[in-house]
């Protein structure tokens, strides 16, 4: 039932508003529909994504928090763990049952004690440290591994783009 999901999302929204983690802003796109959020993530400092502000969309299932939300960046982001269409591929977003990459232990997967905040923090650390072993964007993974300079250059361009400059 969507009722309990709604309550939980409300609680999470409240917590994220009152006590937001550094460089993360998240909330419902429109409170008419509490199951569609947007999140703004600041590129972690000291990485090639430093200074960028990356918008993303979170879509929650009606049985949240039993199932994980889906997350998608709405800006272009060239990153090994982000599909070219913006979907984020990190283990925390995978339901315990499915394993698209085939080698995640269930300990890293979604569980109802996870939350939007933890997802976003994981995404921040993912931005800081791409995992090129389970690549969602093979191109990006290759560039990251073999041609770090080019990757940095693309990342810097992305940052500039994300700021609208």
């Amino acid at each position: 039932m969507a009722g309990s999901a709604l309550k939980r999302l409300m609680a999470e929204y409240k917590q994220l508003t009152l006590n937001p983690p550094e460089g993360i802003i998240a909330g419902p796109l429109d409170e008419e529909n509490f199951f569609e959020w947007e999140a703004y993530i600041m590129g972690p400092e000291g990485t090639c994504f430093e200074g960028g502000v990356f918008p993303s969309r979170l879509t929650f299932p009606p049985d949240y928090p039993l199932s994980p939300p889906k997350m998608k960046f709405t800006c272009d982001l060239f990153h090994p763990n982000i599909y070219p269409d913006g979907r984020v591929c990190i283990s925390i977003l995978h339901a315990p049952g499915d394993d698209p990459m085939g080698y995640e232990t269930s300990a890293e997967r979604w569980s109802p004690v996870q939350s939007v905040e933890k997802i976003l923090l994981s995404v921040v650390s993912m931005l800081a440290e791409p995992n090129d072993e389970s690549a969602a964007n093979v191109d990006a993974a290759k560039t990251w591994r073999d041609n770090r300079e080019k990757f940095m250059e693309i990342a810097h361009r992305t940052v500039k783009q994300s700021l609208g400059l």
Partner: protein
Amino acid sequence: MPVILLERIPLPSLQTYTSVSVLVLSVALYYAYHTVTTVDINSIHELDFGDGVTVEPVADDEVLNEHHDMVNISLPYDSVGWNMFHILTSEVWCVWILVNSAYCCLILLGKAIQKLVFGELRVSEEQHLRDKFWNFLFYKFIFIFGVMNVQTLEEVVSWVAWFTILGFFTLLTQLSKDRFEYLSFSPIAARGVHVKLLCLLFVILLCSFALLFLSGYVGLQAGPTIFAFLAAECLLLGIRALYVVVRYVIHLWDMTVSSVWENKSMYIYYTELTFELSALAVDFAHHLHMLLWGNIFLSMASLVICMQLRYLFYEFKRRINRHKNYRRVVQNMEARFPMATKEELQIHNDNCAVCWERMDSARKLPCGHFFHNSCLTSWLEQDTSCPTCRTSLSEGQQVDPNSNVPDERGAAPPQPPQQQPQNMFTNHFFHFDGSRYVSWFPSFSVEVTHTQLLPGGRQRPIQTSQLDSMARQVQSVFPHIPTNVILEDLRNTRSVDFTIENILEGRVQVPPPGLTTMAVLTDSEEGSDDSDSPSTPSQPSPRALQLARSGEGEERVGTSEEAGGVSSIMDYNVPFLMETVPQPSDEAHFTTGSRFSKSTTERESMLQSRKEQMLQNARKKYLNRQTNSSKEAASQIDDTRVTSETNAADQVQLRHRNESTFQETQR
């Protein structure tokens, strides 16, 4: 533009359709009226068609023929109205016009209901509606011509009428269901919307009962088979509508009553089960009846019906399997995980990690974690591990249900990592060791404890003695660093080595007594030149408050507990800021916590402004960095700037405090 045109070409707009229908109907009415009056006046013999010819040149021949028939048949009633009706229903083209007018009325009625109850339809609702419509049309077409194999026009018309009414209500039910599901996503839907939707659903429900009676009445004359066909459809409609109503009522009740209703999910589950299974059963029986009765084993229709039967059968089986799984989970849970005692709950004193709500009763897992009965059930239905620590709970590892000691498990998988003692107090624990990834990255741990349940003044549940001894170790290396700073850092790193490393690399700022607050705030304002402009008032932040206190070195911990109403504490606040002190960080104040307004619009606008602020600050910082990297000779300007910023920072500081106190009094 071309898309819109393409969409519009196949169907004329409602207005055109309505006006054409009205025109045609009036022509038919006029014809009927004319016929009745002329027959009346001229009794049997002479007929004058002058008027008829001028108005309806097309129908001329027919009029002539019909009039001869009519004259022979003569009119059965005395009143003009009934006679007109008789004529309209006895002529084929008039019947079609009548049918068309009925459809027009129905469409207009549907439109009116949509305007009144639903307003603008959402895209997905429209899509669903269209799918449902074509689906319905297809299956009923199969039914009428494939199964019933109707021959006469009368039969076709009556079946079509029946299915039109049924389809109308079915579509409305579908629409209501979609709308209900959408509304259940929103906490702010107005009461009127719910009332309207529920009223519509009740009307549908009543109509389905009326249709059921009608089918009974028809069945008396047409036999039990026809009755079964008609009644099955009515039943399905009624079940679906009732299902939506029940879910709706439960949802509304759930949203208004804030307390946790312990057996709620069980009731909901069984209602859903009953409704889904009965709908599937009725549908299945209906289709089976069609197949057997129609004698149509070797036709397209039989193929379609078989497919449908197969689908329904698998749905039924799936549902039963799910139920078996549910029963197994519940039984297993009741046998193996005891309900927590009152004392245990008091000691544990925490919210359920699944729904984040208070636990007045809970089940205890062998690993020492507590959850609501219902939350645990729904999770265990899809996975067999503890949500918090992932300890496997599969049935292989039987535990004595009476044992409350978690360590008695024999063949248990590896113990949950070292969090056992803390789980006494906290449920959600998340440690992010940033320095493991990149050296500059801050380490922090998120510990979601629950303030309103913690007795006031209690320290955070970290083993203080252990921390103290660690702090002493660090202090023996760095005697000049205050204990509270070391403690703060230790609380995050939980390792002597990491803290020492942090201090060595300057990530731990040593506060000159009394100046910390200012220094931090000065730094935090440095990135933006016009930070003191009144257009961007920063929200009062618990973090700033906390910062100020910790800078004074008086209250080391527990201050964040005063950010009351906050249901959870992030204890990385202070250390994070301290660690970022060496770098100018202007996001310090715009991402800090703000008020959580009760009003939706205010919340939305606050979120919007926070977003914009974040973007603006990021832009400024980016541009600053660009200019800084291009010319390094900005140092002398900096000197002058610092003094002015100290003033500005002072003011900001003052404002923060005022607002914080204001906030506290508000609570």
